């Protein structure tokens, strides 16, 4: 390759973990620099939005976009980078699926602001002042009515999920881009299998659950399937590629990698799995067992509310 690749990195509604994930490739970052020029990376290099606006359309080869779209600014930059980039990669779970922030979609924008500025326990705001969008010449981007995954705002070429994406996945993505050996548009740059495939724990076929537990309730057996021990592990409904990192350290999978290609709704599939675990034929007892699942949406749609069938219905219906 004679000409160096032009790469851009952007963080929208993001925690910054994804930026660190890029650095997790360690010394290989030097290889990246060898083949590519980084044209935009707010966290690392001082290039202004206007500089980007000034770029020719499609002048950036690949943009790695992390974070969801929560504010007007996020949406604007998404659109901008889409225009300037040949390839747009949704980087990280927030960008791919809306992420944790998506749980905010269970409440309205007003409720969220009210909670954040007025009622939260750490707030001392007796005058109940809320942020102003306009002050003199300053315009502060507004919060959008909901949280969106990147592809709900702009077209996305590839998805690289994970919270944050595993270094190995990041590196293989970069390699693929460098070599031009890319899959079809819209592909997820991770294996199309579930975490269970990589999980070393023993699994059995019987229903065993009389009560669902949470990690702080007990010390799980390190060799046995966590689901069989009553912990809700999203592994069966979650794409692999993370090397089963969480389950390897005795923590249940939270589902950051999203579902596999064939699955429309990660949470819905997980409901089937959990239903299969309940050990009771008595409807009343079943209800009781189900009641031990605390916060089902927060558990089953930790990263995926924005992209869930129900919550994206409005998007589709247009």
């Amino acid at each position, binding site marked *: 390759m004679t000409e160096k690749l032009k790469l851009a990195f952007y963080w929208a509604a993001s925690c910054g973990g994804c930026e660190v994930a890029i650095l997790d490739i360690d010394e290989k970052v030097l290889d990246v620099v060898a083949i590519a020029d980084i044209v935009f990376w707010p966290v690392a290099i001082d290039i202004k939005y206007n500089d980007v606006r000034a770029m020719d359309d499609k002048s950036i080869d690949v943009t790695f976009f992390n974070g969801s779209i929560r504010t007007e600014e996020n949406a604007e930059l998404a*659109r901008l980078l889409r225009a300037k980039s040949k390839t747009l990669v949704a980087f990280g779970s927030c960008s791919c699926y809306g992420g944790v922030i998506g749980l905010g979609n*269970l*409440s309205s924008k007003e409720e969220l602001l009210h909670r954040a500025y007025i009622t939260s326990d750490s707030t001392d705001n007796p005058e109940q002042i809320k942020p102003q969008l306009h002050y003199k010449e300053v315009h502060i981007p507004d919060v959008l009515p909901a949280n969106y995954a990147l592809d709900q705002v702009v*077209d996305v070429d590839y998805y690289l999920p994970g919270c944050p994406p595993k270094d190995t996945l990041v590196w293989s993505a970069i390699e693929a881009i460098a070599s031009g050996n890319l899959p079809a548009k819209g592909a997820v740059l991770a294996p199309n299998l579930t975490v269970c495939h990589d999980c070393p724990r023993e699994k059995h076929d019987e229903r065993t659950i009389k009560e669902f537990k949470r990690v702080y309730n007990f010390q799980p057996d390190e060799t046995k399937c966590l689901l069989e021990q009553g912990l809700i592990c999203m592994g069966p409904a979650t794409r692999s590629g993370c090397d089963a990192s969480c389950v390897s350290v005795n923590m249940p999978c939270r589902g950051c990698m999203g579902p596999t290609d064939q699955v429309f709704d990660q949470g819905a599939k997980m409901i089937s799995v959990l*239903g299969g675990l309940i050990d009771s034929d008595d409807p009343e007892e079943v209800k009781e067992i*189900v009641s031990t699942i605390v916060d089902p949406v927060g558990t089953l749609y930790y990263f995926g509310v924005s992209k*869930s069938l129900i919550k*994206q219905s409005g998007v*589709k*219906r247009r």
Partner: protein
Amino acid sequence: MVVTDEKTIENTDWEPRIVGFLCRWCSYAGADLAGISRLDYPPNSIFIKVPCTGRVDPTFVLKAFADGADAVFISGCHLGDCHYIEGNYKTMRRFEILKETLKQLGIHERRFQLTWISASEAQKLKEFLTSMTSSIKELGPIQLPILAPLQKEDKQDD
């Protein structure tokens, strides 16, 4: 802080749309019987035949809601009578979790129901549909307003 759909002022034109997943051996046969028996029931329900309620993937339910159903119900053989031995038990267990999840997602629990109707219970089917339809009419059209559409202004391939 759960957002639930609110009752809106009744629009006389509006009729609820209800999707029912009926198992092939009992409830669908019961619906057949209702038809043969010339039983009247509200036309708001549309039935989807599945071999067993155990086939009903929660995704189907979500899909139905997402596609605009005002209510969804699942109807199968009575517990213990499942043609496939225990498929309806599996449904029953799933249903409970799904119902809780839907509640949290803002869908009124009356909009998602599970019932057992055998092949001979055409009358029961009629009663169920009648009561469900009127109950949904009371609730009004479903509102899933949260993720309002955001225009993809710069969409290139449009």
